[in-house]
């Protein structure tokens, strides 16, 4: 069965410093990987997905199949980045249910 691991429950970073949120997965097939974000008092929303290979709000994530990782990175943290971040995995072309990690709460220190 698929599994997503986010080892850090809490992460605090100073404004302007680099951010890296870790995500590792286990899945026997070829998965689709996503990062979802939940800002305070807002609903869960997609941040980015690996197939798009795009940068959203300065964040990027590269799928490393050798290390089965999909870490989220941003070179310079901003205060508005404070939120709960979830890494998620979906089976490719079939049941697109998401398997989520337990989430990392990111706090940016002014």
């Amino acid at each position, binding site marked *: 069965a698929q599994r997503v691991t986010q080892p850090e429950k809490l992460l605090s970073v100073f404004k302007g410093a680099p951010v890296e949120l870790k995500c590792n997965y286990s899945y026997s097939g070829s998965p*689709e990987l*996503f990062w979802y974000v939940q800002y305070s008092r807002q*609903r*869960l*929303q*997609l941040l980015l*997905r690996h*197939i798009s290979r795009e940068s959203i709000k300065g964040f990027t994530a590269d799928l490393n199949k050798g290390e089965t990782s999909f870490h989220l990175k941003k070179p310079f943290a901003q205060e508005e980045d404070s939120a709960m971040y*979830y890494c*998620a995995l*979906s089976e*490719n*072309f*079939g*049941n*697109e*249910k*998401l*398997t*989520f*990690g*337990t*989430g990392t709460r990111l706090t940016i220190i002014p």
Partner: protein
Amino acid sequence: GAGVSQSPSNKVTEKGKDVELRCDPISGHTALYWYRQSLGQGLEFLIYFQGNSAPDKSGLPSDRFSAERTGGSVSTLTIQRTQQEDSAVYLCASSLGRGRPYEQYFGPGTRLTVT
């Protein structure tokens, strides 16, 4: 257009009572998902609908949980004989559907408290 809506936003119920949670997906979205967000448990998948059919019910924690979807639109999650461990935020999401792993759009959730 309108996003995914859920009702009620909050529900407090006594242990042993039945509850119904409702989800209105985005119009035209054929896939609908229910998840549960518990403290310390993160987000866990409950059930997936494609149209009115539920090809994956593997996440339902017990036979006290059931869900249905009618008209390819509204879905209802029913919890019978609620227990305190059912307390959580229940999230609904919808997406364009099978074969297209596009993003899922989430509702605001229903916070269920069982006393």
